C-alpha cells in the first residue's frame, strides 16, 4: 500500500514536472532556437530552420516568414536575432516571436541574415508543414501546394491529419495529391503506389508530370514503372492539346500588342497616306507620360497608384496628340504628296525626339510599375494567363471599337473620311481641310500615345521603345490593307498567331524571318493587302 502511494506520488511529481515544462511562455523555449538563425553560414542556417520547424509550434511560422522575406537581422553585439524595419538613421527592432518592441539599433550595429535559394526552399517547406492546419484557407492552400511540391514521405501522417480536418474541397484535393506524391517516394507496397499514380494521373498537369518523370526514372522495373510510363504518355497527350490552345492564346496576346502599336499608324499612314517614321516615338511619349504620372503619384499620393494607368490614358493621348499636331503643322503639311521627303523628314523627327527624351530623362530604363490588378497570373486548365497580357487584349479591342465609333459616328470622323476620299470636293463643301489634316494626324498620334501606356506595362520604358514597334506596325498596316481599319485588326491577329505557331518550331529569330517572307510573298500576290479599298479613293 505504502508502495502504491509512493509510486502515485512519484507519478504526480513527474506529471507536475511535465506540466511545468510545457506551461511557461513558449517564447522562452523557442528563443535560443530563433537565435540559432544568427549563426554564420548557409548550412548552419538551414539546420536552424529545421530545428525550428521540428518544434511544430505555429508560433514559429511568422519568424520563418520574416526570414524568407529578408526581414531578420542579427545584433552584432550579442548575436541576438530581431525582426527589423528601417527607421530614420537605423533600424527599429522587434522580437520576432512576440512582435514586442525591442528598441532601436544603428545601421552598423545589426547585420541582415542573408538567405539564398536553398534557404528559401527550406523556409517554404518548413512553413508548408507548419501552416497546414492554419485557420486561414489561403494559407492552407499555399501550404498544401508547398507540401505537394516537396512530397516528403515523412510528412504522410501530418498530411493524413490535415485531410481529416480539411473542410475546403479544393485544398483537400491538393492534399490528396500531396499524399499520393509522398507515397510514391516512400517504401509503400507497389499496389498502393500504382493507386497513387492513378490518382495523380487523374489530376494531370505539368507539376504532376514533373513528379511522375522523376519517379519513372528512379523506379525499378515492375508494375510501378509501367504505371508511371502510361500515366506520363497520357498526360503528355493532353498537354499537347493544351499547347495548341496556348499558342493561340499567346498569338492573340501578341496580336493585340501589334494592333495597339499599328492602330495609330493605320490612321496616319493608312487613312492619310503619310509615311510616318516618328510613329514609334509617339508610343514612347505615351510610355514616358505614364512614367511621369506614376512618379508624381509615388511621391505625392501613393494610395492612387492602382489608378495611375487610368489617369495616364487621357494625358498620354493629349501629350502625344499635341506633339503629333505640332509635327503636322511644322513639317508634314509642307510635304503632302511627296512620300520620300516625308519619310526622311519624319525619320529625322524620330531621331530628334529620341535624343530629346534621352537628354531629358537619361538613357536608362525608367521603372513603370504594374498596378496590383495587372500583376500575376491565373490558371485556366493547364494554361497560365497573365493578367497584364489579358488586360492588354481587352484594352486593344476597346481602343479599336472607340476609334471605329469616332470615325463612323461623329462629325469629325465624317469630315476626315470626306477629306481623305476627295479633298477638293470636301474643301468646296466648306470643310477646312488643313485643320482636319492636323487633327487627324493628332488623333493617330494620340492613339499611339495611349498604346504607349499599355506597352509600358510589358516593355522597357527607354528612348528606344518606339524603334521596336515601327517595322511591325508598318507590316501590319500594309498586310491588312492600307486605309482599312478592319484590315489592321485582322492583320494584327493573323500575324500574331502565325508568329506564335512558328516560334516553338523555328525559334524566335527564324520565326520572325518566316513571317516577313510570307508577307513579302503575300504582297506580291495582293499588292493592296488583305482588305483592299475599292472605289474612287483608290484611283485618286
Amino acid at each position, binding site marked *: 500500500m505504502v508502495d502504491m502511494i509512493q509510486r502515485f506520488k512519484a507519478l504526480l511529481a513527474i506529471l507536475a514536472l511535465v506540466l511545468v515544462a510545457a506551461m511557461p511562455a513558449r517564447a522562452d523555449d523557442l528563443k535560443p532556437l530563433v537565435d540559432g538563425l544568427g549563426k554564420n553560414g*548557409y*548550412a548552419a542556417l538551414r539546420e536552424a530552420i529545421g530545428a525550428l520547424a521540428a518544434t511544430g509550434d505555429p508560433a514559429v511560422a511568422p519568424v520563418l516568414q520574416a526570414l524568407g522575406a*529578408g526581414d531578420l537581422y542579427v545584433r552584432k553585439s550579442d548575436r541576438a536575432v530581431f525582426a527589423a524595419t528601417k527607421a530614420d538613421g537605423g533600424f527599429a527592432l522587434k522580437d520576432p516571436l512576440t512582435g514586442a518592441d525591442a528598441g532601436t539599433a544603428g545601421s552598423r550595429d545589426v547585420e541582415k541574415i*542573408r538567405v*539564398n*535559394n*536553398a534557404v*528559401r*526552399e527550406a523556409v*517554404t517547406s518548413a512553413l508548408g508543414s507548419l501552416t497546414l492546419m492554419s485557420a486561414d484557407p489561403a494559407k492552407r492552400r499555399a501550404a498544401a501546394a508547398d507540401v505537394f511540391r516537396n512530397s516528403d514521405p515523412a510528412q504522410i501522417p501530418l498530411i493524413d491529419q490535415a485531410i481529416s480536418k480539411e473542410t475546403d474541397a479544393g485544398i483537400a484535393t491538393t492534399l490528396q495529391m500531396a499524399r499520393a506524391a509522398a507515397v510514391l517516394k516512400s517504401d509503400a507496397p507497389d499496389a498502393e503506389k500504382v493507386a497513387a499514380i492513378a490518382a495523380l494521373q487523374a489530376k494531370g498537369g*505539368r*507539376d504532376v*508530370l*514533373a*513528379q*511522375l*518523370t*522523376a*519517379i*519513372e*526514372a528512379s523506379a525499378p522495373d515492375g508494375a510501378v514503372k509501367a504505371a508511371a510510363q502510361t500515366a506520363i504518355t497520357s498526360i503528355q497527350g493532353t498537354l499537347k492539346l493544351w499547347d495548341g490552345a*496556348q*499558342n493561340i492564346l*499567346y498569338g492573340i*496576346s*501578341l496580336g493585340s*500588342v501589334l494592333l495597339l502599336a499599328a492602330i495609330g499608324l493605320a490612321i496616319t499612314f493608312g487613312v492619310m497616306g503619310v509615311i510616318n517614321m516618328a510613329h514609334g516615338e509617339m508610343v514612347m511619349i505615351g510610355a514616358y507620360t505614364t512614367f511621369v504620372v506614376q512618379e508624381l503619384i509615388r511621391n505625392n499620393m501613393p494610395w492612387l497608384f492602382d489608378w495611375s494607368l487610368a489617369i495616364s490614358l487621357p494625358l498620354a493621348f493629349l501629350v502625344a496628340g499635341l506633339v503629333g499636331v505640332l509635327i503636322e503643322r511644322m513639317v508634314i503639311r509642307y510635304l503632302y504628296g511627296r512620300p520620300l521627303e516625308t519619310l526622311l523628314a519624319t525619320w529625322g523627327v524620330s531621331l530628334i525626339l529620341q*535624343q530629346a527624351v*534621352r537628354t531629358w530623362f*537619361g*538613357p*536608362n*530604363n*525608367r*521603372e513603370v*510599375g*504594374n498596378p496590383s490588378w495587372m*500583376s*500575376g*497570373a491565373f490558371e485556366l486548365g493547364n494554361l*497560365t494567363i*497573365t*493578367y*497584364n*497580357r489579358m488586360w492588354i487584349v481587352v484594352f486593344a479591342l476597346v481602343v479599336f471599337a472607340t476609334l471605329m465609333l469616332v470615325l463612323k459616328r461623329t462629325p469629325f470622323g465624317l469630315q476626315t473620311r470626306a477629306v481623305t476620299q476627295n479633298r477638293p470636293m470636301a474643301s468646296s463643301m466648306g470643310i477646312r481641310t488643313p485643320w482636319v489634316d492636323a487633327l487627324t494626324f493628332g488623333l493617330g498620334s494620340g492613339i499611339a500615345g495611349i498604346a504607349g501606356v499599355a506597352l509600358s506595362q*510589358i*516593355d*522597357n520604358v*527607354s*528612348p*528606344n521603345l518606339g*524603334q*521596336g514597334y515601327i517595322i511591325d506596325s508598318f507590316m501590319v498596316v500594309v498586310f491588312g490593307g492600307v486605309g482599312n481599319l478592319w484590315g489592321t485588326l485582322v492583320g494584327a491577329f493573323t500575324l500574331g498567331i502565325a508568329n*506564335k505557331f512558328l*516560334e*516553338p518550331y523555328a*525559334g*524566335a*529569330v527564324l520565326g*520572325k524571318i518566316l513571317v516577313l517572307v510570307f508577307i513579302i510573298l503575300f504582297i506580291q500576290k495582293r499588292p493592296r493587302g488583305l482588305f483592299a479599298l475599292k472605289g474612287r479613293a483608290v484611283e485618286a
Partner: protein
Amino acid sequence: MLNYVSRTIGALATAAMIGAGVTGAVAAEETIKVGVLHSLSGTMAISETTLKDTVLFLIDEQNKKGGVLGKKLEAVVVDPASNWPLFAEKARELISQNNVSVVFGCWTSVSRKSVLPVFKELNSILFYPVQYEGEESERNVFYTGAAPNQQAIPAVDYLMSEEGGAVKRWVLEGTDYVYPRTTNKILEAYLKSKGVAAEDIMVNYTPFGFSDWQTEVAAIKKFGSAGKKTAVVSTVNGDANVPFYKELGNQGIKATDIPVVAFSVGEEELAGIDTKPLVGHLAAWNYFQSVDTPENEEFIKKWRAFIGNEKRTTNDPMEATVIGFNAWVKAVEKAGTTEPDAVIDGLIGVSVPNLTGGFSTIMPNHHITKPVYIGEIQEDGQLDVVWQTPGLVVGDEWSDYLPDSKDLIADWRAPMSCGNFNVATGKCGGKGS
C-alpha cells in the same frame, strides 16, 4: 586723346590675345590626353554613358592628386552613336587628330572588332572594360572585363554544386549575336565534359530587343518539368532582359523552382524593374555594388558626389574601367613616358587594387586576374553575394573547351610576343588573325 585711348585698348587687346594664345599653348603641352570612345546616343547609350562618366570621374580624381608625370590629364570625349563603323572613324579621329595617349571604350564585341585595325595601324592602346566571349588577344588591347572562364564557367559550377541547387538540366537562353553564341558554345562543351547529357541542354536564341517572351518562358517551364532540377543560363542582352524577367515573374517561375543566372544583368539593368518577383535569381560578375569593403564604400561615396546623385548605382564594367585606368596610370609612371610601346610592355605585371578588397594583375595575355562573385537579386534591386571563388581567376583568352582554340595561348612578352601561339604546332598564328 580719343585716338590714344583706342590705340591703348587695341594694344591691350592684342597683348591679351597673344597672352591667351601662349598660355593656351602651354596648357595644351602640359596635358596628357585620354580618349573616351563610348556611345552617348543610340541603343547602347543606356550602358555606355555611365562608363564615359566613370572615366571623367577617374581623370578628375587623378588630376586632384596632381595628374600623371607632373601633367594634368585631359579627356577627349567622342560619341560613336552605337554605330559600329563610326567607332572606327572616331577611334582614328581620337588617335590621329587629338593625339590621345590611351583610349577607354567600346561595349559590344562588334564595336571592338571594328576599331581593332585602327589601333593596330596607328599603334595606340585600348582598354576594353566589358565581359566578352574571349577568343581574342591583341597587342594593342587590354581586356579588363571578364573572359568566359571568369564569369560563365564559375556560375555553372556554383549551380552544379550542392549549395547552388545541384542543377542537372540546363537552358542556355541568349540574344542572337556573337557573345551569347560563343559563350553558349563554350558552356555546352563544358557541361558535356561534366557528364550532362545532350537532351538535358536546351539552347535558344531571340532577336535583339525581344519583348514577347511568352512562348520562350512557357518552353522553359515545360523543359523544367522533367523531374530534374533545372536552371536557366541567360546571356540575354540589355533591353530584352526587362520583359524577360517580367514574364518570368508573371508566369510564376520562382527562383527556388528554376533559378536564372544572368551574365548581362547588373544593378543598372535592375533599376528599371520591379524586383520583388525576381528575388533569388542570380547574376555572375566580378564586382557588385553591395560588396562590403572600405575601398568600395569610398569609391561609391566619391562617385555619387562627382555625379551629384545620391542614388546612382555602380556596376561591374565600371570597376573594370577603374582597374584599367589605374593600371595605365601606374604603367605610365613606371615607364616615365606615354609612348605606346613602352606602356604596352610596362603594363604586363602591373598590379592595382580592385574595389572588392584584393588586387588585379595584368597578365601577359592582356587579360587580368579577378575574383568571381555570384549574387542573388534582392527586393531593393541590389545583388547580395552568396558565393565567391576561393581565389583570383586568371582570364583565359582561348577557351580550353573549344576544339579549335584549346591549343592556343597568348603571351605578349618578348620573345614570344604572340596573341595566338599554337602549342601543338609550336607556331604563332593559329586561329584568328
